[in-house]
C-alpha cells in the first residue's frame, strides 16, 4: 500500500517516520512517498503540520479536491486540518481569503490559542485510541462540527470551551495537535482503518 505525504511544506519527515513506525507496529507493509504536484497512485494522503496559508498558495486545490471526493482517505494534522476544513477564520485577523479543500464538516478558528507562547503539551483521551500525549503548536480549534464529522476527543480552548481535538469523518481523520511529534497511536489508527 502506498501512502502519500503532501510535501509542499511542513513537518513531512516527522510524519514519514511516524507512518513507518506505525506500519511496523501493525506488521503492515507500506510505501511512504512524498507527493507535490501529482498524487500518482497513492491510496491515502497525509496533510502534515506547517502553515496552511503556504499550503493554499502552493497546492493544486482542484486536483486534490477531486481525488478526495473520489474517495482518497486523508489524515490531516494541525495546518492540514485548516486546509481540509469547510469553514475557516482567524482569531485575530478574522476572515481570510485562503483557499481550502472544503471537505470536513467543521468550522476552524486558526491560531485559536494565541501565539507560540500559548503552545502546550497535554494528555488527551481519544475514543477508540486511548490516552495520548498531544502537542499543540499554534494550534487551530474546531469550534463547530456538523454532518458526518464525529469528534473523538475534546480539549479545553480558552474563549471557546470544549472543542474537538480529533475528528473522524470516515474515511478521513483529523487532529488539531501533532501526533507525529509524540506518538504513533493515531497513525496506527488511521492505517488500520484503510
Amino acid at each position, binding site marked *: 500500500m502506498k501512502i502519500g505525504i503532501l*510535501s*509542499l*511544506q*511542513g*513537518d*513531512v*519527515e*516527522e510524519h*514519514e*517516520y511516524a507512518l513507518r513506525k506505525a506500519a511496523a507496529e501493525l506488521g503492515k507493509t507500506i510505501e511512504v512517498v512524498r507527493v*507535490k*504536484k501529482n498524487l500518482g497512485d497513492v491510496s491515502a494522503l497525509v496533510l502534515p*503540520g*506547517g*502553515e496552511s*496559508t*503556504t499550503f*493554499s*498558495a*502552493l497546492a493544486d486545490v482542484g486536483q486534490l479536491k477531486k481525488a478526495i471526493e473520489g474517495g482518497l482517505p486523508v489524515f490531516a494534522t*494541525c*495546518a492540514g486540518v485548516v486546509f481540509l476544513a469547510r469553514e475557516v477564520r*482567524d482569531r*485575530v*485577523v478574522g476572515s*481570510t481569503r485562503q483557499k481550502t479543500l472544503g471537505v470536513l464538516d467543521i468550522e476552524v478558528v*486558526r*491560531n485559536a490559542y*494565541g*501565539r*507560540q*507562547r500559548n*503552545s*502546550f*503539551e497535554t494528555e488527551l483521551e481519544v475514543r477508540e485510541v486511548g490516552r495520548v*500525549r498531544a*502537542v*499543540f*503548536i*499554534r494550534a487551530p480549534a474546531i469550534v463547530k462540527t456538523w454532518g458526518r464529522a464525529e469528534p473523538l476527543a475534546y480539549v479545553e480552548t480558552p474563549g471557546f470551551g470544549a472543542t474537538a481535538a480529533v475528528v473522524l469523518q470516515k474515511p478521513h481523520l483529523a487532529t488539531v495537535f*501533532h501526533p507525529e*511529534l*509524540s506518538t504513533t497511536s493515531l497513525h496506527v489508527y488511521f492505517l488500520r482503518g484503510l
Partner: protein
Amino acid sequence: MSIVNSLEVLERLESIFYDMLEIRDRLRESGIKWSGGSAPLSVKYGFPAMLKHGVIMDVTNVEQAQIAEEAGAVGVMVLDKLPYDVRKAGGVARTADIKVIEDIMAHVTIPISAKVRIGHYYEAFLLETIGVDLIDESEVLTPVDEQHHINKWIFDVPFVNGARDLCEALRRISEGAAMIRSKGEAGTGNVSEAVKHFKAIMGSIRSLSRDEERVRDFSRQCQVPIELVALTARLGRLPVVTFAAGGIATPADAALMMWLGADGVFVGSGIFKSQDPLERARAIVYATAHWDDPEAVVEAQRMVSEKSAMLGIDIRTLKPEELLQTRGL
C-alpha cells in the same frame, strides 16, 4: 533523517542539557522571574519543525508582511531596517519598534519572528512578552556582549542563531537555540558565504560520522558536551531544524540551499530590495518547495527578471570590519 522524528531525540537533548536546565531552575529559585523556561521541549523544538521546507521573509512594515503572507511565506522576520540598509546606514542596529511588531501581529496570521542583539537579554525579554513566535539572536544587529550569547534555556520562546561552522552551531544549540541558520553575509544579495557555511557544517558532520575519536576531539575543541557531538554524528545532521540564510536573492539561490541540505530558507534584503517583491516572493516560495524538480525551479526563475534583482555586493570588496558574520562566535 528526521529530527524531531521522535521523542527519542528530544529526550536525548533533554538529558544532554540537564546542566543547563539546572541553571535555569537555580535562576528561578534565586528570584529572577523570567516568564519562560517551562515550555516542554516538544513545544519549543516542535515549532521550528512546522516551518520546514518554507521561506521566512524579512519585512519592515505591515504592507510587506501582507505581501509575504500572500506569497506563501511560513513566517516573517520584523526588522527596523533590511540588512542591506543596516549596512548602508551604519551606526547601532537594534531590535525593531514594538509598535511595528504589534501592528504586524494584528494584520497577518503567520508566525512573527524578530531579531535581538547578541547577548541582549532584555530585548529578548521584551519580544517574548509581546508574543513574538521566534527570536533571532542576530549578528545583523550590533552585539551588546562580545563574549556571551543569551542563555536561551531561560526562555519559553524558541530562538534561532546563526553559525558559520559546526563548532558555532553546536555551541548555540548547547546554549538552548532551538533552530540554527547559516550566517552567510547578510544584506549583500550574494549567496556565496551561505554556501560556504553550509558546506562547512555538513562537511564536519560527515567527518564526525566516520571517526569516533574525532567526536571527542571536536567536543574538546569546540567546548560543547560530547553527548551533543555524538548525537549529531549519529543523526548525520544537526539535531535541530537548520535553515539557510545570508544573501539569498533569487529562486535558484533558494533551491541551491535546499539542495545543500537546508530545511528551509530565510530571505532578507533579497525580496524587498528587488523591483518585483510579490513575484519574487512567490517564486522563491515555489522554488523552495520544488527544489528537487528542475523544471519547477526553471518555472520559478522565469517568474522573476534578473534586471529586477537586488544589485548585490561582492564580498571581496568588503573590509574585514564591514563583515557581519564575524560577530558573535
